[in-house]
């Protein structure tokens, strides 16, 4: 029996309404494209101590989901449970402390006029993490945890490089001792050689502090390297969830396959031109009828245009929202990866 997930969402939806003039509201019928469903029935759980990656194209709702989880916005409908208990819509100080966020751009997420030490001190005192006399020692401990030295306390964000700023942002998130970290594209603004150090940091935080991390990303090579499980989002829904190696070696949703085939590859031999996704994601104002991926799907049949499939189990711990999941042919890239994996093992 597995432990209860630390965080679970069920049937979460989030709608946004466009501001419209009275005249256009009168002239247009109810179905006019004035409301946007950023999330359209999302079920997901984050298990204790795992890194779960959330991938998808822009506009798929990844960041909206991250915002809802951290309490930055409330869902239109649906449930959000923390350790099996419903999370109140308006979180008190203690509830909001437990789930912390690291943002994409470390240049805009840190206040340029507050020194690192003052920033940490404010949090430590506000949340009464340590008594006043121990604030400095605790701040130094946090900085060391993310690989910075004590002298960073007096410095301002502008004195640091992008990678160092991201470390400070992580230290800030860790200051209030959360047990869940939501990281929204935390390495995509960083250089390649720096990326690796931040990825290592996330892995060590998971290992040493037992943190559960939701890692929002679009770079599948990074995801494959870091996470234990992957959830793929498309147009406001989760379309496939599985353990990382299972997802990449045996993808059971055509969209996941298209994503994998689009990854630029480091070895020339593995360049795949078989399955190129045509078109762009449809507008969330106007979601296609039936399966939302059907207009771009090479495997789509009439049944796909008629029914909107939910997330169904296809193997142990592997769910896909494709009604033809079992019929899909084997995936050639996936096969070549599992072959190299066997060869190196």
């Amino acid at each position: 029996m597995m432990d209860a997930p630390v965080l679970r969402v069920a049937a979460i939806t989030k709608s946004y309404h466009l501001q419209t003039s009275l005249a256009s509201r009168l002239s247009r019928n109810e179905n006019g494209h004035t409301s946007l469903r950023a999330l359209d029935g999302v079920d997901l759980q984050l298990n204790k101590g795992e890194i779960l990656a959330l991938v998808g194209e822009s506009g798929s709702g990844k960041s909206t989901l991250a915002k809802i989880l951290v309490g930055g916005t409330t869902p239109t409908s649906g449930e959000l449970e923390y350790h099996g208990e419903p999370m109140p819509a308006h979180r008190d100080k203690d509830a909001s402390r437990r789930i912390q966020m690291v943002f994409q751009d470390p240049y805009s997420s840190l206040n340029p006029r507050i020194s690192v030490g003052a920033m940490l001190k404010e949090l430590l005192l506000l949340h009464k993490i340590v008594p006043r006399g121990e604030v400095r020692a605790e701040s130094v401990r946090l900085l060391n945890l993310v690989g910075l030295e004590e002298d960073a306390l007096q410095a301002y964000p502008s004195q640091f490089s992008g990678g160092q700023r991201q470390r400070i942002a992580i230290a800030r998130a860790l200051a209030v001792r959360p047990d869940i970290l939501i990281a929204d594209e935390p390495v995509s603004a960083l250089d390649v050689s720096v990326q690796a150090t931040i990825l290592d940091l996330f892995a060590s935080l998971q290992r040493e502090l037992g943190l559960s991390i939701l890692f929002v990303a679009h770079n599948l090579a990074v995801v494959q390297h870091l996470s234990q499980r992957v959830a793929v989002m498309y147009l406001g829904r989760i379309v496939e969830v599985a353990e990382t190696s299972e997802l990449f070696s045996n993808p059971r949703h055509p969209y996941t396959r298209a994503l994998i085939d689009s990854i630029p590859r480091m070895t020339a031999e593995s360049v795949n031109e078989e399955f190129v996704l045509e078109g762009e994601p449809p507008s969330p104002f106007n979601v296609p009828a039936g399966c939302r991926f059907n207009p771009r799907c090479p495997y789509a049949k009439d049944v796909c245009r008629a029914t909107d499939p939910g997330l169904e189990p296809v193997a142990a711990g592997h769910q896909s929202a494709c009604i033809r999941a079992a019929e899909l042919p084997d995936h050639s890239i996936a096969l070549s990866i599992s072959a190299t994996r066997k060869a190196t093992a």
Partner: protein
Amino acid sequence: MTQPLLSVKSLTIGVRRPKGVDTIIVDDLSFEIQRGERFGIVGESGSGKSLTLRAIADLLPAGVEILTGSIRYDGVELVGMPTPARRRLMGPEIAMIFQEPMTALNPVIRVGEQIAEGPRRYLGLSKRDAMKLAIEMMAKTGIPDPVRRARAYPHELSGGLRQRIMIAMALSCGPKLLLCDEPTTALDVTVQHQVLRVLEQLCADSGASLAFVTHDLAVVNQTCSDLAVMYAGHIVESGRVKDVFRDPRHPYTKGLLDSAPDFDQPERELVPIPGFPPNLAARPSGCPFAPRCAFAVEACTVAMPPTVVVAPGHAAACIESQSIFEGVAA
């Protein structure tokens, strides 16, 4: 041998300071691009890769200028050429695609007209013919329903479509050299894949050469035939992409390859490069990579190592380039 399409020699770019020492950003850079070649320039932020491209396009930011060196396009010297003549080259001969299409397009002009502007000015087409060409170019870049989309404003289009508009605009006058500054960094993977294919296809059709600046090694591998790796304003290694990736001879190139996650080798450990790139104002003497290099010896800090040809068409600026990775598993 025919002369290269673009030949950059000892190019030094920086900020001139009448009192004191000039700040040098790109230092003594030399490379050549042959006709039809797809040349990648790889480096991290601050390595000077974008400035090099902008120097070729005469788009250096205010205050930054070419201090010495030469850029010859098709045998013609571009450095010191009067601005009107230089501008006449941009479009029919050299065109550029930028990273962020939203800021590179004019927000208040319909995209069809923006594409047609070049052909009207440089190819002398009538308004109607230029618009016909614009729509044709849009169709070639794979924009669905180009007739209707030509009447759209940039904000009405998605990022992928905007970048296709940029490509259509850049290629509308049939340039021989296309400069690309991280053209797909702002796009999603699936769209990036589509845009790179369009770019490759159109360059292959028209025979245009490509100078492609990016920080993404995997994108270079898929797009370019040759590459130069830049670090702190220097080219530290250059050669055929597959040779450099298989057998890197500069510790920085090796470090970059080891720190980037490779989708085909999920089990491989990522090895970050320790330390930080040097500050431009306080550049170390000698090899700029020496402070971060595991193989550095005393000689590295004395003078910039000369560029050594390690194999046909493969050069590296490291004094140990011949022997450095011998016995080290690649």
